[in-house]
């Protein structure tokens, strides 16, 4: 496990040194500016609107940092062959991939939590408003989503043969992962059986990112968020990440570095 943490520390430092956090700072200012502008233009419950838009900003900046990190490191690791150096050390390929997942997730979590604290601070100390507990829950669910996506994007990095391909796969999965509710809706409609079969397969293969999308249910009066939902969402995130990690690991093992 020490080796995994060494790789994680290395990946974390690599991303921090690549000035990835500047993106976060710019996005924090831009998203907070947009959120502030929209909330003052709106009518009714201005603080709530600012917090909702802040949650969107948290997710956007997390995704932005993740996608850019994956793109930048694909270039250094695979095109510039920096991976040779790491694999030459006494680290298995599985440990290497797991370490990178933890390192990348640490950077993304830093961005999401930092942005969340910034937004909550603005509401509490500048706007003199209050922050609902659901805001914290939404942020934590977002972190689970980011963990699944970090594993997924890094596994794509192990499978993909070009940086563009990796970015496109990642973006498509993020987009399609939010469509699962509509796939479910389609499955209940009168459509051809073969289409239903395809949709069922798609539903089981794609990550159900709506599970973690608590920010869209923040006003839902019927929302029940208890231990059962927390444990199942956590287990789901772990199970899905585990499968994706194994696929990425197998691909990394098969990959020839010459």
């Amino acid at each position, binding site marked *: 496990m020490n080796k995994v943490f060494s790789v994680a520390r290395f990946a974390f430092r690599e991303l921090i040194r690549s000035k990835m956090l500047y993106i976060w700072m710019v996005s924090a200012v831009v998203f907070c500016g947009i959120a502030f502008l929209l909330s003052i233009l709106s009518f*009714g419950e201005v603080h709530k609107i600012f917090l909702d838009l802040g949650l969107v900003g948290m997710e956007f900046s997390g995704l932005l940092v993740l996608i850019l990190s994956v793109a930048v490191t694909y270039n250094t690791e695979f095109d510039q062959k920096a991976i040779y150096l790491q694999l030459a050390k006494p680290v298995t390929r599985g440990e290497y991939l797991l370490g990178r997942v933890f390192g990348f997730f640490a950077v993304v979590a830093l961005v999401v939590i930092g942005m969340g604290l910034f937004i909550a601070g603005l509401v509490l100390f500048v706007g003199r408003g209050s922050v609902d507990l659901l805001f914290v829950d939404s942020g934590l669910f977002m972190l689970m989503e980011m963990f699944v996506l970090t594993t997924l994007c890094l596994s794509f990095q192990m499978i993909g043969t070009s940086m563009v391909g990796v970015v496109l796969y990642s973006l498509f999965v993020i987009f399609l992962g939010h469509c699962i509710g509509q796939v*479910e809706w389609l499955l209940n409609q009168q459509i051809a059986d073969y289409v239903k079969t395809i949709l069922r397969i798609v539903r089981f293969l794609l990550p159900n*990112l709506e599970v973690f999308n608590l920010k869209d*249910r923040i006003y839902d*009066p019927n929302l029940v968020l208890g231990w059962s939902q927390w444990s199942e969402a956590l287990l789901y995130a772990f199970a*899905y990440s585990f499968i994706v990690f194994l696929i990425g690991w197998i691909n990394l093992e098969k990959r020839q570095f010459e």
Partner: protein
Amino acid sequence: MTSDANHIRVGRWIVPIFLAAFVAQIWLADRLENWVHPVPFTASRSGTLDPKIVSSLRAAALLTGYKVLIGHAFWIEVIQYYADWDNAVDHFSKLYDYCRLASDLNPEFIPVYTYGAAALAYQLHRLDEAVKLLQKGILANPKENRLKLMLAAIEYHYQADYKTEIPFLEYQISQGNAPTMLINILANTYMKVGRDQDAIRLWQHILATTNSDSQKYEAAQKLKVLYQQIAAGDKTKRSSK
């Protein structure tokens, strides 16, 4: 040789673990799906709005996972529409459809129903649409008492049943934590029946307590009108003496 043996040993465990995790994620995804989407998706008709815009907005909201963001952005569009006096020519004919679409995008955002219904009922005098909007809100948010109270208040108001409306609203407000919109309705009703001092008391309360600039502005305007009426009334009394 040792590396191959390790691979074989790991490989034996990996396949069953992989299958177990896959089955677990399918089972959990199925269970969590019912938690996330308990109510099947139903959309209102586009009405007087361009169906292409309506379907594009709905698709963007449902497919991207940013329903609340798009809902808030569209709600600002609704406010801009109502604030634009060019639209007064046709008496803001699209307001109901706009509010209905905003509530489709963000069904649990209560201000869409309260402000939308207030504008439709008290300013545009379109009771049917206000009632339909509030009924939609109550169906989507059955535990939200503000909407039920407002529906009752509008019904009484339209029947000009002020004798029932005033005690009803007074009782609801005395329970505490009443929405400003309800106090606003009562203050306007007081003005209608000539209870100016009670109206002044409520407008002053709104002016002192609300965070909304527009509500503060409205309260200040109403107070100005009431003070002018009282001053004019005093003058008339003095001159008649």
